[in-house]
């Protein structure tokens, strides 16, 4: 079954619970958006899925196309097919983007297989053209001295080159001006299709004008409190998060 299933996931940071019985299923071929106010655990979800050691999974399961990934090392998770675009991508001085991506691709090959350099560069350049990234970029160190927009485009480029089954984009729209946002959105839209499931994490509805999601989930206090179609995002945009808070409070009182 081609889907990313998150079942009753509980995540703590330094023994403080952040995600509580969080459940969500993203079938391949769909784009789901998670929205919610700051501090509700959206980024925690992304980091926990990617296997960051600071985010302790205290319960629940994450199943990627039938394979449980909780407890795997972060690189195994990545090679299993989950890509995360970081909200704050690390700067890696001295390691060029080309070498970085070659290493990531090489790690995905079977033993004895070799990466063909010409094919690799051909593919890299075509994807860079698609994302309107200057070819001179390949020799620059990963994210070092990049503008906010450049960093995010570099994340999407990596996603395109690594061809994940599922991608979690953590606040990919933050810090972007409208032109950069459009380029990033265009990149995601070009990759959209039956082979990939996308989880967009965002605070603002703005991004969803350019990447129209199949489903929208509202996250609050470490849980999903409301799900719906794209119209849900519109409502959040016009009414803010207060009504969610109130609905949540009512829900808690009534239970």
């Amino acid at each position, binding site marked *: 079954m081609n889907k990313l299933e998150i079942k009753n996931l509980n995540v703590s940071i330094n023994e403080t619970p952040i995600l509580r019985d969080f459940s969500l299923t993203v079938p391949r071929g769909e784009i789901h958006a998670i929205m919610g106010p700051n501090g509700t655990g959206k980024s925690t979800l992304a980091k926990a899925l990617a*296997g960051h050691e600071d985010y302790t999974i205290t319960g629940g399961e994450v199943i990627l196309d039938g394979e449980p990934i909780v407890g795997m*090392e972060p*690189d195994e*998770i*990545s090679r299993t097919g989950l890509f995360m675009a970081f909200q704050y991508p690390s700067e890696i*001085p001295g390691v060029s983007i080309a070498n970085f991506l070659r290493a*990531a691709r090489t*790690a995905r090959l079977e033993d004895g297989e070799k990466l063909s350099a010409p094919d690799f560069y051909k593919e890299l350049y075509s994807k860079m053209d698609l994302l309107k990234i200057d070819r001179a970029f390949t020799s620059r*160190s990963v994210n070092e001295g990049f503008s906010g927009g450049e960093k995010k485009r570099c994340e999407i480029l990596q996603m395109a080159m*690594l061809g994940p089954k599922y991608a979690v984009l953590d606040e990919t729209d933050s810090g972007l001006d409208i032109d950069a946002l459009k380029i990033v959105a265009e990149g995601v839209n070009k990759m959209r299709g039956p082979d990939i499931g996308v989880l967009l994490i965002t605070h603002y509805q703005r991004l969803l004008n350019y990447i129209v999601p199949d489903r929208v989930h509202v996250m609050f206090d470490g849980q999903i409190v409301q799900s719906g179609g794209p119209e849900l995002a519109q409502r959040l945009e016009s009414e803010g998060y207060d009504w969610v808070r109130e609905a949540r409070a009512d829900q808690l009182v009534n239970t």
Partner: protein
Amino acid sequence: MMITSEPTTTDNPSLEDPRVFQQHQDNLGIDVPWLTSAKQSAWSRYLELPSPLRTDEKWRFANLNRIREMGDFRPVPGTTPEVPGIVERSRRFNEVSGRLVLADEALAAAVELDPDLRKQGVIFTTLADAIVQHPDLVQRYFMQQTPELGSEKFEALHVALLRNGTFLYVPDDVEIDRPFVSYNWSCRDGGALFPHTLFITGRNARASLIEFQEAATEETRHLVVANAHLYAGDGARPVHTIVQNWNLNTLSFQLNTNNAQEETVTKSTLINLGSIQARQEIHGKIFGSGSNVEMYALNVPRGRQEFDQRTLQSHIAPRSRSDLLFKNALMESSRSIFSGLIIVEEDAQQTDAYQTNNNLMLSDKAEANSLPGLEIKANDVKCSHGATTGRIDESEIFYFLARGIPRSKAQELMVFGYFEEIVQKLDNAELAEYIRERLVHKFTD
């Protein structure tokens, strides 16, 4: 081990032997009065100066045991040793302006120099030859500047016993892309070498000199006290690189000055791979305004290697810039000392001076000592220094893991990425590629 019937160092008196200087003078075969008298006074200075102590600030943290035992070494005889393959091993680059190969301080093959450059007045030859052919030019620069960073005694020994080295003179307005390459090989067991480099660039001249320091074999023991002095005339753009790769039985000294007049862009880089212990003193002296003096080093000690580096950036004239970046990656039980100082003199207003020392600790037994200092006597300046010591950043490793790159590969990429900052400053693709290879070799050996 090399077994030959040619003269070996054991025929010479050792450094402890009072006859060593007289024997050296008798065999030198260069009869230039100013040099003879310079050597004589240097010898008496060597005898008078006290040996360094750990309590001297300039020798803080230093390991003096090997230095105290250097009396066993014997100056090399000045004849070319018969070591097969040296000349062939001294062909690392295709694109060069000139090539010079010294084996135990003696010329191993004819000096090569692009004839067009010779016509333009470029001089590229051995120091011994330059002293005879261009005595005034050599005298004008010889030991005019010294590092003054603690090794005065060994500098005196160097002058007293030096016999050869590399001389490169680039006249005014001559600009040269391809590098000059000089190879210094240590060959005979127990030999003491005193190579001396003079690199002079005239007004608006541009040139690059690469020096390789190597041992013919791994087993021989050596003492090397090398000097290299760079003089950049107004508007000159010299680039000087030393690849120190003496064998692991070598105690080496490298005592350098980089002297910048006005509006120069002066760059010097040290790549340190070899020697069991290397003491290096590099003094950048900025005499002119508008200059940019860059000093870089990449040090990769391993085993019980110890690199002890002392640097000084002296801003004497106003409105100049200097930038120093010394990066260490320490493996196994190796040790490093970086002691750097920026001095901004009263008149050197509007100075920009930077100094950075990074230590990447790759073993639990390695030790890094860092003493980054500033002495600022003018107020309109931008000066900063930074020193970091640590291991590979875990959050950066996570970024690699998140892209599916295994931990070991991530570490390797990050270590080589750490080196790249210096390697990319080398300005010469062939050299950069060669250094990358040497680094991989050093890591995977």
